[in-house]
């Protein structure tokens, strides 16, 4: 009896050992943690497109969707790290602390946190896209297409990422149309179609005839379609949700980066880094331009896109003033990445205060 027990115990240990070693040696498994559903057709949807690119490159992937930015995130991460995943992508800002905390417990698992800045352990990398470059293009279009000179903007949370987007958008719009005003409504959510729709309606009632958004659902473009005004797709091409309203979308293209990083793990060349890619590196993509846009605007936008990609044009080129008229960036200078990363003041022309 005793012998049988020991024998089975040892053999199961051996089996377990070969299984784990086999898994590590054979192929790399990547996991993705999402804030919303993969069907949001926005932020999470695009990350999942990136995940599928990793699958197509021949790696195994899993994902967990709708993970709240709370203690739940930690549990999910720990479970993924425990179940043999070699690299885990955490795709929302609020996963920053859970990612670093769990990374400490699993030094052999690589962690990649999107849009964050904390890399407390050597197995944590961060990556983000220069979405503000895309918003420069949206601002140019909005400033040209508006007739009421009131542009609405549905914002999510007052963090530098969002403020930077509002500023970049407003600066570009002012450049083509000095009379425009940007009205901001904070929805205090990343994904809640009901709230986003109400925020958009409020802006339309205020006279906005172009609406931009920094929330993830398609509710806003649908409201814009109903109201007969213009809007822009967020994160993915939202044209099919509102063919008349959507002038273009700023798409997040994570696939190449994801494939690159998973391959690095497979080759053993993965190392910690902080990636911030824009239009030039293909992480930010501008969808097809709507035919309602005049031809000269279309060519202007295409040129701007090329100039942003080559670095000839920077979204934040001085002189830039804040709301009180203080100089933020001097004439001929551009804002450096440090300033961009911590941007918490509105530029001149944005209405209202940043909620604290």
């Amino acid at each position: 009896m005793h012998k049988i027990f020991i024998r089975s115990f040892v053999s199961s240990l051996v089996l377990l050992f070969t299984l784990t070693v086999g898994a590590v040696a054979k192929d790399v498994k990547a996991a993705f943690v999402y804030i919303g559903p993969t069907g949001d057709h926005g932020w999470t949807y695009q990350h999942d497109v990136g995940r599928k690119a990793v699958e197509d490159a021949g790696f195994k992937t899993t994902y967990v969707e709708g993970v709240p930015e709370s203690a739940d995130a930690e549990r999910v991460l720990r479970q993924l790290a425990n179940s043999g995943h070699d690299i885990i992508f955490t795709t929302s800002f609020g996963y920053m602390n859970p990612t670093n905390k769990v990374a400490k417990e699993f030094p052999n698992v690589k962690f990649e946190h999107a849009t964050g800045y904390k890399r407390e352990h050597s197995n944590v990398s961060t990556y983000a896209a220069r979405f503000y470059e895309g918003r420069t293009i949206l601002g140019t279009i909005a400033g040209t297409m508006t007739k009421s000179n009131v542009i609405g903007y549905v914002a999510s949370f007052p963090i530098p990422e969002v403020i930077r987007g509002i500023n970049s958008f407003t600066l570009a719009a002012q450049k083509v149309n000095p009379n425009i005003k940007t009205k901001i409504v904070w929805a205090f959510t990343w994904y809640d179609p009901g709230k986003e729709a109400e925020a958009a309606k409020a802006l339309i009632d205020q006279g906005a005839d172009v609406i931009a958004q920094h929330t993830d659902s398609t509710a806003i473009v649908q409201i814009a379609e109903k109201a007969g005004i213009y809007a822009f797709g967020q994160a993915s091409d939202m044209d099919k949700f509102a063919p008349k309203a959507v002038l273009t979308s700023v798409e997040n293209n994570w696939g190449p980066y994801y494939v690159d990083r998973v391959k690095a793990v497979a080759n053993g060349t993965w190392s910690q880094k902080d990636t911030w890619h824009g239009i030039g590196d293909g992480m930010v993509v501008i969808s097809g331009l709507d035919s309602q846009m005049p031809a000269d605007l279309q060519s202007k936008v295409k040129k701007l896109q090329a100039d942003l990609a080559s670095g000839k044009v920077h979204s934040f080129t001085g002189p830039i003033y804040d709301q009180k008229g203080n100089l933020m960036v001097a004439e001929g200078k551009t804002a450096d990445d440090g300033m961009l990363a911590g941007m918490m003041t509105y530029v001149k022309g944005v209405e209202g205060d940043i909620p604290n």
Partner: protein
Amino acid sequence: MIIDINFVGLILASIMASAVPLILASCGELITERSGVLNLGVEGMMIIGAISGFALMTVTGSLIIAVFGAMLAGVLISTIFAFLTQTLITNHVATGLALTIFGIGISAMIGKNFVGIPGKEFPILFESLKDTIPILSPILFGHSIVFYFAFALPFITNYFLKKTKLGLIVRAVGDSPVSASNQGINVRLVRYMCILYGGAMCGLAGAYLSMIYTPQWIENMTGGRGWIALALVVFSTWNPIKILIGAMIFGGLTIIQFHMQAVGVRIPVQFLTALPYIVTIIVLVVISRDSRKIRLSTPSSLGKSFYKDN
């Protein structure tokens, strides 16, 4: 700060649009409660209506089938409640809560395949008259048929309860099922019908959310509106006309914060977000000041099971 006259009309119109699901669900629940049945499953029935409407619209492409299908789905799920509470004589509160949890769960399961699909455009009426009268025309014109129905419903419900024989029967069953039964009224049948009617209205309220208000499906999209509808029935002291006022207040509170932001009123957003809850407390306090009135207008047998022991 200058407020455009038309702007007032626009705000009122969007407040009314957000009040529609509250009115529909509350009026349905009011009839159920008037017959002496307390159904706490409003949220669950609404969410079932929301997914059924959206799913049927996507699959069949017909808005009419979708709207009536959503109502039928509400009827079906409330049949479970009716069978349990009326035939098996289970506790109303526990069964209602179970219904809500069941509804949220099953709708998420069915809805898995319908996330991220664009909804269809719902036809609106009198669109051409939209710019004719200042202030009034955005309120009166350019809405869906469900919108107009919702604003007529409190008056219809009031008429039904006060002026028709059937309404009298419903009230009698709610106030004294024993006397009603002795008069030869089939109490169980009346209560069954009232529960099913409540289910149909909640289903319609859900369909309004997923097909008209924000035409798409997301998990848990009713977002607690079912509970507000339940509270509204109490606020209104079981009077359908007062439901209309209550629904406007609650609809307004969810919308007004965005408008205040857009106008540039400098009130902390956190306070505006908390406003609906603060008002709930105030209204509760004001109402419960007169406890006699509450006792008089509450259906006497509300939430009590009725056994016919012969």
